[in-house]
């Protein structure tokens, strides 16, 4: 093993093979304040090496609930889908920075050998990378080389009902297990050392239109998931499973049943097939034990007739007690939606002085700032072209125009059905205090038609399609100041992209485009510093990790998981 000098600055962030705090190569504890600087990173290399060696010989460190809460203390690891519980997708690593990003080179590539969109954000824990792939693949790789330690693929039934591709966005990790939500609507735990199935829980009968594509969220001893199926008239829910046994501990239905508050916002029996799926990973505030989840469209997405009312809790932000799933408060972004304006974007926690906020660039084209203690709306400003709303209610929330509803022959409305953004993750950079989001400038022609509900069948209430003139049709990475809602700078994409965004302490933001480029931009100015042609459109949100004292940035594109680093 290579011996690197240890200054002891941050070794207490590490745990040894048994999960005990790792004392560092010199065996001494040191309580100097942590530094996330380059010096700090280089000096942790010996600790990372020790841990990687442990993994090879005797199994790896356990990921405890405490480590998940303290993820900021181990920036070399990426412990959950959004990098931290606040949903910031910010890496405190700064070895790759503004000064040297131009020199980035590919380090290794892992191929899933599968077709379809590759949407994963991998996890990295102590030198091992855990990812997912199309058709419910999962794998553990040596994070230095991309060589597989194990590979898993679920034997999926032939009649699953995914909405938009046989995709999966990633895993959660807790203890010695990784957790996968599957397209046939199961939640499974895999042994992190072997990929063997430890337990397999059925969330719902997939034949009724339920599927799972999101990365689960581990909190305490629970594994939280939400379901997809807003295209099938499901009744959405968020579940929590015991991480050890797979036993379901609670379920929160996103469409209230008879007798529950909010039930009155659905006409007749429409609540039974009201959709409102929760298909993007939530966030968590340990101090208040609150987990924040977002929901998608009411079903059928393009037809409001037959489901008169606000249709709670579709297109909403939900604050749930993490132990019980009990609703603390909700905020509905789009009432009685007819344009598929899912709110399924990661709800990101931002603090401004004393103010504890949740910000979201919503698919409906507005950037919302909400008080995360109460759910009260603070501001809503457009960040992309919007025609569905031209007024606000007393709270300051946008209100839909009457003439924006879909019509039998089609009605042109902006944003289009794919939204002003979508599931791809935004990032909040605490260094610049800016929120970076992928914006899509596209309008669609929304049509509507009556459609009978049939269990397990697509239930859209018609269709949308692009303008014949195809304009506008472009995209941008926008840097939004949450304090004002104003865009500080933008990086234009020739066509709308499905790539998420990562920010790093190196003063960089990383994103991908539909033309196949993976790009590093100056976080302060939006100037492109580097790009690499991946050979396929990027349909994923990037992340960063370090091993052996070297920082890597990773992104999925095509069927390849690509990593980049300095030469």
């Amino acid at each position, binding site marked *: 093993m290579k011996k690197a000098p240890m200054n002891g600055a941050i070794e207490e962030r590490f745990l040894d093979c048994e999960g005990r705090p790792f004392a560092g190569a010199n065996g001494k504890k040191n309580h100097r304040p942590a530094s996330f600087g380059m010096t700090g990173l280089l000096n942790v290399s010996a600790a990372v090496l020790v841990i990687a060696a442990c993994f090879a010989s005797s199994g790896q460190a356990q990921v405890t609930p405490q480590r998940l809460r303290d993820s900021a203390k181990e920036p070399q690891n990426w412990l959950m889908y959004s990098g931290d519980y606040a949903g910031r997708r910010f890496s405190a690593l700064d070895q790759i920075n503004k000064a040297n990003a131009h020199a980035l080179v590919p380090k290794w590539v892992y191929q899933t*050998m599968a077709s*379809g*969109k590759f949407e994963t954000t991998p996890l990295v824990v102590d030198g091992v990378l855990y990812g997912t792939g199309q058709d419910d*693949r999962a794998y553990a790789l040596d994070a230095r080389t991309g060589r597989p330690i194990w*590979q*898993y*693929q679920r*034997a999926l039934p*032939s009649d699953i*009902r*995914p*909405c*938009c*591709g046989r995709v999966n966005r990633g895993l959660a990790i807790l203890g010695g297990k990784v957790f996968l939500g599957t397209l046939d609507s199961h939640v499974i735990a895999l042994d992190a050392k072997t*990929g063997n199935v430890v337990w397999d829980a059925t969330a719902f009968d997939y034949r009724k239109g339920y599927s799972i594509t999101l990365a689960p969220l581990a909190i305490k001893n629970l594994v939280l998931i939400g379901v997809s199926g807003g*295209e*099938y008239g499901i009744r959405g829910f968020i579940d929590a499973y015991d991480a050890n046994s797979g036993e379901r501990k609670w379920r929160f239905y996103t469409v209230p049943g008879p007798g529950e508050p909010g039930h009155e916002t659905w006409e007749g029996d429409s609540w039974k097939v009201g959709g409102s799926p929760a298909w993007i990973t939530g966030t968590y505030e340990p101090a208040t034990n609150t987990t924040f989840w977002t929901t998608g469209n009411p079903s059928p997405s393009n037809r409001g007739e037959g489901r008169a009312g606000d249709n709670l809790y579709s297109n909403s932000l939900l604050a749930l007690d993490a132990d019980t799933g009990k609703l603390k408060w909700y905020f509905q972004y789009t009432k009685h939606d007819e344009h598929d304006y899912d709110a399924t974007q990661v709800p990101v926690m931002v603090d401004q002085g004393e103010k504890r906020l949740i910000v979201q660039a919503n698919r409906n084209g507005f950037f919302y700032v909400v008080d995360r203690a109460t759910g009260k709306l603070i501001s809503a400003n457009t960040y992309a072209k919007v025609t569905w709303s031209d007024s606000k209610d007393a709270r300051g929330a946008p209100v839909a125009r009457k003439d924006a509803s879909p019509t039998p*022959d*089609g009605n042109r409305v902006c944003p289009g059905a794919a939204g002003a953004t979508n599931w791809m993750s935004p990032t909040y950079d605490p260094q610049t205090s800016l929120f970076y989001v992928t914006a899509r400038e596209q309008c669609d022609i929304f*049509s509507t*038609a009556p*459609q*009978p509900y049939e269990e397990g*069948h*697509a239930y*859209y209430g*018609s*269709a*949308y*399609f*692009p303008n*014949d*003139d*195809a*304009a506008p*049709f472009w995209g941008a990475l926008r840097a939004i100041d949450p304090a004002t809602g104003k865009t500080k700078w933008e990086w*234009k*994409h*020739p*066509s709308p992209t499905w790539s998420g965004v990562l920010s790093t302490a190196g003063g960089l933001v990383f994103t991908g*485009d*539909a*033309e*196949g*480029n993976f*790009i590093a931009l100056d976080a302060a100015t939006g100037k*492109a510093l580097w*790009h690499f*042609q991946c050979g*396929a*459109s990027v*349909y994923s949100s990037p992340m960063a990790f370090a091993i052996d004292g070297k920082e890597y940035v990773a992104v999925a594109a*095509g069927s390849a998981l690509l990593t980049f680093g300095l030469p």
Partner: protein
Amino acid sequence: MGWNLLWCCGRLLLWSAAALTLRAQEKNPFAEDAKAAKLGEYEFRANCAFCHGLGARGGGRGPDLTRARKKHGSSDADLYRTINEGVPGTAMPANGATQQGVGMTAEEIWQVITYIRSVEKKAPAQPVGDAGHGKELFNGAGACANCHMIEGKGGRLGPDLTSTGSSRAIEYIADSVRNPNQRLAQGISEAMKEFSQEYETVKVVDAKGEKLTGVVLNEDNFSLQMMDTKEQIHLFQKDKLRSFEKTRESLMPAYDQKMLSDKDLQDIVAFLLSLGAPSGGAQ
């Protein structure tokens, strides 16, 4: 667990399933059933209208399906195969692989076919024109062949028109001649990209000061691949260009009445419609 093994088993299952369904699916069990056509319309809206437009009248990306003659075969079995298996090398995906809608059951595919039959124009949409004269114009005085290829002959600057007659409405073709800026044709389609590059016009001045005009073949934020009017293909890094201008004004001239009479236009449309007779739908 071996992925290869899974893959193998999956393929075997697929083959046997395909063999079974093919045998069963030569004829439409719902032919002329109005109720099935209605159900098919729902499926069409959800799964097909994104490219083929409402009413199956065609969109920017998908052919007009109200034409009785279909490019990839017009029989019930042809349509079923086209929907179920897609058309390799085109934007038409296999059933269930659209990434947008969802897979249809065999029953639902037949309902969609019933719907398509119900909106097909019963009167054969044969143009009143002289295809022979249209061919002469296309290759001669009309100068169409300078930029458009048909069955391997002609220019490359504009889209190949071999199959346009079998996939577009007559009005669409006529309008594209009179007003080419109305909608630009789709060019290169990348496998993972939702929308293909269009035939946009580009004018550049390169580092040496040379001016070039042509069409965009492929473009991203950093580079441009273009074909100039002499059909030379160039690759430029955008930051090395002195100037770069892209427009949605087609390089094709708008053929007004003076350049091309209504009668001559009809003849050219008749020529295009006479092309690309379906090969029977073989691979």
